[in-house]
């Protein structure tokens, strides 16, 4: 079928809006998956760094991991995971993006959690241990709930910045929101400003929705004496 040069950009945007939403869907799934990996792994790294064995054998690799993933541009990581890993396992572009971005988020989240844990006064752990709690129970019932309140602000920042980073996954062929926008732009020979304005709005709405949820969670956890 021939292209329809008679359609103006508003018609095209309206007609292709479902595809922008589809791209937004891919971005959201990518975001949730990478934040989840980042959360689980970041928490594990943080706990090992703070409470794990102090031997170099454990601490040194954690430090290297953190430095590497925070220090290498995400595009490089995407290429490494997509093309580099394919020699070992035939990984899809989406999985490579989730892994590369999730592992990097883990490095950032471990830092967020570590400083949150460190801002809980040492006396809290000491009192819990003095009452007979094991280290694990003390972390779980006393230190973790308090550090969660310290972490939620910086974590909201991480959430917001990762939303924006998902748009980079297109370099290895993940067709997310920005890529869908490219399709509209190239098939209509332009309209960069109009199309990206709509895309910006979609990212903005997603970001606000996520932030509102996190703020609501923060309010739910609010305790007198924890206001900052």
């Amino acid at each position, binding site marked *: 079928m021939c292209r329809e040069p008679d359609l103006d950009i508003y018609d095209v945007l309206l007609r292709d809006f479902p595809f922008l939403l589809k791209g937004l869907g891919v971005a959201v799934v990518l975001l949730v998956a990478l934040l989840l990996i980042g959360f689980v792994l970041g928490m594990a790294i943080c706990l090992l760094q703070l409470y794990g064995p102090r031997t170099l054998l454990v601490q040194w690799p954690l430090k290297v991991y953190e430095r590497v993933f925070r220090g290498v541009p995400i595009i490089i990581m995407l290429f490494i995971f997509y093309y580099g890993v394919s020699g070992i396992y035939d990984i899809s572009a989406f999985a490579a993006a989730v892994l590369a971005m999730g592992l990097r988020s883990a490095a950032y989240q471990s830092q967020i959690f570590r400083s949150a844990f460190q801002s809980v006064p040492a006396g809290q752990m000491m009192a819990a241990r*003095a009452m*007979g*709690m094991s280290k694990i129970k003390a972390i779980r019932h006393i230190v973790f709930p308090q550090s969660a309140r310290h972490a939620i602000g910086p974590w909201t920042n991480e959430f917001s910045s990762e939303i924006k980073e998902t748009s980079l996954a297109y370099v290895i062929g993940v067709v997310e929101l920005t890529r869908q926008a490219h399709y509209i732009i190239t098939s209509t020979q332009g309209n960069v400003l109009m199309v990206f304005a709509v895309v910006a709005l979609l990212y903005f709405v997603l970001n606000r929705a996520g932030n509102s949820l996190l703020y609501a969670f923060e309010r739910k956890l609010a305790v007198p004496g924890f206001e900052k």
Partner: protein
Amino acid sequence: MTDDLVLDVRDVKKSYEGLEVLKGIGFGLRRGETKVLVGPSGSGKSTLLRCINHLTPPDEGRIFLSGEEVLEKNIDAMRARIGFVFQDFNLFSHLTVLDNVRICQVKVKGVAADVATERAQQELERVGLGDKASAYPAELSGGQQQRVSIARALAMDPDVLLFDEPTSALDPELTGEVVRVMQKLASDGMTMVVVTHEMSFARQAADELIFMENGYIIEQGPPQQLFSSAANDRTRAFLNVIAEHG
């Protein structure tokens, strides 16, 4: 001989980076007894108290609680039976007063939730804070927080209660309410070791005063005897200074 002792501390030594803080300390505590540890700062009183429940594990020596040795491997179970009251309270700041007093009963001793709640409420009444159950620590005065922390320790039904300078972090006008609670506990027959500079408490509530200096116990005996006629010059000098300020 050790059987009737609730707490039996034998020849405890502790060094920090080559500096010997405790140079062989021993004392015993019978059921219902209150002993007060006094001495100049740096004499090792707080370290001794922390060695008892291994918050600071001793380098040498042995500690028995009701005949059972306190060891690294049974430390959590032992700590559940040794109440500890900190100088700066260390209430769990994300929990209400009631939950502060409940949580370790439930999570450490496995007490049923409703039983723990009832017990917590009782202990709060006992320290005069029954009406503060739903408040958060940050909403209380220092004196109230310290009384909650005493209730928290009591709710565990401990064999012995250790107080590490419980009034030192308080404004002078708030020490009275805490001292009164401690006096009441002593007269109720609680077994306690107290590190404090509150000589009024030592005089009225202590069965025995232990004077420490430079990591040694210099002298111990009933408070009246030490206050009036301490055998050791240093004890006498220290108690005189303290008595003037206290």
